[in-house]
């Protein structure tokens, strides 16, 4: 469903992606792990055209991702994104955040969008917060609204860019719980994360990225429990046993 073929990307002289080839099947949950600055987030941002890429190709359901072509708007409605810093619209309520896309991008009738929006907020456990503005919500609640906003577009896949990295530790569980439910429901997900427990339990496959290349990939449990490559072993040791 999502195909990346030898994708290269530089920021100035700094080459962050040095030939990424990967694919994500429908219904699959793929976690991308690796040290910071390894290019994980850049991969996600290239998939929905928030970032351009220099060489290679990316396609979503056979449609080429080109951020300068009008088709990018279609791709973005099919591939939603959840950000590290939530990026909710602060001037709108939780419910308004969720229905913004359906109402103004998909031109859904208001009544229908409202009904779906309320159902989605209930799905992420925030039915009673519909009329709250983002600054009145905790980080975990904001991120769950952001997930509801992404779901409201009825996307074929959702990209998660370190969705729990900006959260207080005690709020991480709520967000991961919502994501786990989505995975169980068969949503196609690409998740950049440092939550190894989540990756092991929920992901079908894990990609380990370092220095702009995929160092190792495979089934989640196998890769995280018995990493083959020394760099993967070293990274996991430092993440799992920081002391």
């Amino acid at each position, binding site marked *: 469903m999502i195909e990346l073929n030898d994708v290269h990307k530089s920021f100035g002289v700094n080459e962050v992606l040095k030939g990424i080839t990967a694919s994500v099947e429908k219904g699959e949950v793929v976690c991308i792990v690796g040290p910071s600055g390894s290019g994980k987030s850049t991969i996600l941002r290239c998939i929905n055209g928030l970032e351009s890429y220099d060489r290679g190709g990316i396609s979503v359901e056979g449609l080429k991702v080109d951020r300068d072509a009008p088709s990018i708007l279609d791709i973005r409605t099919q591939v939603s994104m959840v*950000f590290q810093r939530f990026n909710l619209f*602060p001037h709108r309520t939780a419910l308004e955040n969720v229905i913004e896309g359906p109402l103004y991008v998909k031109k859904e009738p208001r009544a229908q969008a409202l009904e779906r929006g309320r159902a989605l907020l209930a799905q992420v456990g925030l039915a009673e917060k519909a009329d709250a503005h983002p600054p009145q919500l905790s980080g975990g609640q904001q991120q769950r609204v952001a997930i509801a906003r992404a779901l409201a577009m009825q996307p074929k896949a959702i990209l998660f860019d370190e969705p729990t990295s900006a959260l207080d530790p005690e709020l991480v569980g709520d967000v991961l719980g919502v994501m786990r439910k989505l995975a169980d429901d068969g949503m196609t997900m690409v998740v950049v994360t440092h939550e190894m427990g989540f990756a092991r339990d929920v992901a079908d496959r894990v990609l380990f990225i370092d220095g702009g290349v995929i160092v190792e990939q495979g089934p989640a449990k196998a890769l995280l429990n018995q990493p083959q490559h020394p760099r993967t072993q070293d990274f996991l040791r430092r993440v799992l046993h920081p002391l």
Partner: protein
Amino acid sequence: MKGFWHDAAEFFPILMNGVVLTIVVTIGSLLLSTVLGLVWAMMRVSGIKALSMISASLINVIRGIPIIVLLFYLYFVMPDLGVTLSALQAAILGLGIAYSAYQAENFRAGIEAIDKGQIEAAQSIGMGWWLTMRRVILPQAVRIVLPPYGNVMIMMLKDSSQASTITVAELALQGKLIASSTFKNTNVFTLVALMYLTMSIPLILLVRHFEKRAGKR
């Protein structure tokens, strides 16, 4: 200040005719400068190089010409080019164009103050450039832009007096005419100053209100 209240009562009705024109010029040029300023600001942040460069040069040209010269140009030079404007039209047009440069820079600053993550969030749900502006950026930028916008309103109220140089009989010119025919300079110009001040006070309060609101979130 001898006989101030007596003179005030006598000249007030005449000066009120000037007040009406002052308000017309201020509101007219405020609206025009807001619309033009928005257009320049949009061009500036459009991401299209040519538009952004045109807008930047326009702003600099406008900023570099004194308002009074702009007014003379519109009122005295344009007729030679076949465009005849009434004094009132020229005043509104001139002040509107002159202030559009400041408005544009103010609007641009407001737009650029919005977190880039907001633009990305809008894009990630499939919004195009215009929809992102209209639904996400501008509603948030308004909050930032309003206090300086209020200050521009006060400045425009006072600068509307420059319209007197092209024969618009607004408050300042009315005052000058009365003063030169009665020689009661002190009383007349004190009254004129008080009338400008009276018109400014609601605007000053409005700015304070905007500032309080902007500070809230």
